[in-house]
């Protein structure tokens, strides 16, 4: 999560790599409790999130997106 891009940056990097017809097909909010399903989030970091992130923001600390794109050519990478 710490290394995740914004959706806008993600799409911009796809475009710069030469992808076209870029579609965002799904957006799913990811909150602190969603993170707790993953063993990668240790109990101490989950506690930090619950403590430091305002309660009203804890439902959406990230967004999982599904992206589809096409590669038309190889001249942009």
């Amino acid at each position, binding site marked *: 999560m710490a290394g995740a*891009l914004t959706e806008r940056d993600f799409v911009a990097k796809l475009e710069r790599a030469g992808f076209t017809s870029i579609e965002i097909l799904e957006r799913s909010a990811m909150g602190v409790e969603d993170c707790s399903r993953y063993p*990668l989030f240790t109990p101490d970091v989950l506690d930090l999130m619950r403590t430091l992130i305002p309660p009203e923001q804890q439902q959406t600390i990230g967004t999982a997106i599904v992206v589809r794109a096409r590669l038309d050519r190889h001249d942009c990478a």
Partner: protein
Amino acid sequence: MTETGVARDLMRSAEIKQIVRSAYAAVDGSSEMVAQKLYSPEELAQVPQGAIEGALGVGNHLRHAEIDAGETLLDLGCGAGIDTILAAQRSGPTGHVIALDFLPEMLERTKTAAAEAGLANVEPLEGDIEAIPLADDSVDHVISNGVINLAPRKARVLAECARVLRPGGKLTVADLTVAEEELPTEILAHPATWAG
């Protein structure tokens, strides 16, 4: 960027990769919680238990993936193999899925899952997603689930996807994004948030 800046950037990049590598190597694979959230019962019925328990993706991109029989797919960061298995079933015996991961432990799990599913069209491949060990124009479709955000150099990953895809090739990925406003520094500085 100055030479010092480049060196510092590469050092940080190596550090992030090591954090991610250690975190994923430590996963015991004993939870179905992620798979139960993302996949339908019908999908899960086609996948061996080990791959279900090791699912760590963030979405179900395969619902939107147009996979043709006979395609060569590349699963970028295959993990325990749940998406590799589902994609290999759809590409059929004339297609195949290259399952790329930088952890031999994960590749072993994918290999075991493919064997349990009776699939002969899965090819495990050890490598870094920033330097994909495949030839140019060798893949029809790149899939990936919750992996690109873990890479220190995401532009490099996407450029590598473009390099290995044939012209007209497809990319269908699920990944985590964040809002413009950053999370608190204490959270961003925690190693677990670079892997999760």
